[in-house]
């Protein structure tokens, strides 16, 4: 079946260091991937999503590349900021109404 795996529950980083949050998926059909970010006491918001033409989506310094060969859509940023501290969800849509969310990775950026 369709599934999303986020292996890290908590990632703690010092400000200025690079960020990489892992996301792998299993998909029955052609996958469409999303990253959502949820700050404390707020609703999840779209951070970025994969393109059908293999362009690399970017937003607020974050980027992710869909690699179908390895079934991955890892989230990266070159330099972490304190304001990046949040819960990050990777999500999969397989072309219908169904969205499968990963367990989420909590990113904690410290000074």
């Amino acid at each position, binding site marked *: 079946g369709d599934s999303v795996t986020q292996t890290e529950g908590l990632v703690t980083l010092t400000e200025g260091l690079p960020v990489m949050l892992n996301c792998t998926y299993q998909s029955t059909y052609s996958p469409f991937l999303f990253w959502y970010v949820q700050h404390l006491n707020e609703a999840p918001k779209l951070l970025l999503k994969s393109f059908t033409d293999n362009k690399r989506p970017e937003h607020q310094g974050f980027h992710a590349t869909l690699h179908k060969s390895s079934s991955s859509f890892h989230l990266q940023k070159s330099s972490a900021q304190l304001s990046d501290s949040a819960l990050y969800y990777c999500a999969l*849509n397989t072309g219908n109404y169904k*969205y499968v969310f990963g367990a989420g990775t909590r990113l904690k950026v410290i000074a």
Partner: protein
Amino acid sequence: GPKVLQIPSHQIIDMGQMVTLNCDPVSNHLYFYWYKQILGQQMEFLVNFYNGKVMEKSKLFKDQFSVERPDGSYFTLKIQPTALEDSAVYFCASSPGPRNTLYFGAGTRLSVL
């Protein structure tokens, strides 16, 4: 951007009573969802709804839960009767169609006493 509104933001209720959580989705959206998030834990899928019908529901969507969207008005989640373990933040989300972004509301915090 598009806004999903949830009313109320916080609801306190005694165990065993009925509660209805209201969601005003983005006007041209066709697919509607409810998610549950217990404090400090991950967000979990409850149910999705399209064209007046439940398309899929999870194991968390107990028999005491029901959803409806009468005549294109609010998309509601009703819990009757409530239990202590129903205490959580409930997020509503909507989407215009397949492969589109899910837009989430700010959530309703339900406290069952």
